[in-house]
């Protein structure tokens, strides 16, 4: 291979590695790396319920702002007792969990949700100890 081609190949590989390195941190968004360590909670009205892959989620209206509350994967969420039959859009909900480190986004991952006086611990090993 001639010199120019070799340089081009090397540069391309370098650019790909850089791109991969830059993308790396974003890949950690699953799990709990993207949330604050302290507990956080919101109370509001459910505007959407999604129980399915890859994660169950609730959309919650809090004083006119929509929050996205991520729950566990569907199997774990249903095992915690939270199914499509136990809550309806319009219900009041309290979600306890951890807020996104990025405070500009209204997003949290819940470990516990309380709807219609029922408590559902979707991450039972992570609920607050009290």
């Amino acid at each position, binding site marked *: *291979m*001639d010199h*120019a*081609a*070799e340089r*081009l*190949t090397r540069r*391309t590989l370098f*650019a*790909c590695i850089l*791109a991969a390195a830059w*993308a790396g941190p*974003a*890949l950690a*968004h*699953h799990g709990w790396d*993207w949330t604050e360590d302290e507990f956080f909670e919101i109370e509001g009205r459910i505007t959407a319920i*999604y*129980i*399915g*892959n*890859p994660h169950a989620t609730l959309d919650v209206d809090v004083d006119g702002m929509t929050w996205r509350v991520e729950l566990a994967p*569907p*199997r774990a969420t249903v095992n915690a007792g939270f199914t499509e039959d136990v809550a309806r859009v319009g219900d009041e909900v309290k979600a306890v969990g951890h807020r996104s480190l990025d405070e500009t986004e209204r997003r949290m991952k819940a470990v516990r949700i309380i709807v219609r006086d029922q408590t559902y611990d979707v991450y039972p090993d992570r609920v607050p100890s009290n």
Partner: protein
Amino acid sequence: MEFLALLQQLPPVQALKSSFFAYPVVNALHIVSIGTLWSSVLLMDLRILGAFSELPYKPFTRLLRRVALIAFCGAVLTGFSMFAIKATEYAAMPVFLAKMALILLAAANFLLFLRLGGKDGKGEDSRKIRIPAVLSIFLWSGVVLAGRFIGFL
């Protein structure tokens, strides 16, 4: 949007939505497909740019193009299955639309490559096909990156 809402209601889509095993398997097959596609595309592009010139261009490219096309079909099938679960939500995500646009650009770039002489391998030594080869690397890398971000935005 009407169509997307109907798509979400199809029984196999509903089954995948609530499945315990199938979704991670489809997800894994999607990763395998895009990894295979990206790697084979990268190798073909680097070959055009002068790397591994000791390997004969035609059989090398013929093999990898076949691999890339099969992997692309696998990625489309698995990707569409996962898309269907939350079709209306994904279709409204800028990063998802960016990914689809990048795939279209990559396809247009492939057509450009064929026009510039990449089709029969006669253009092997042509400098012209180096442009789509470089573009191809960046476009397909962009597709992978945009795809990864769908899960995080």
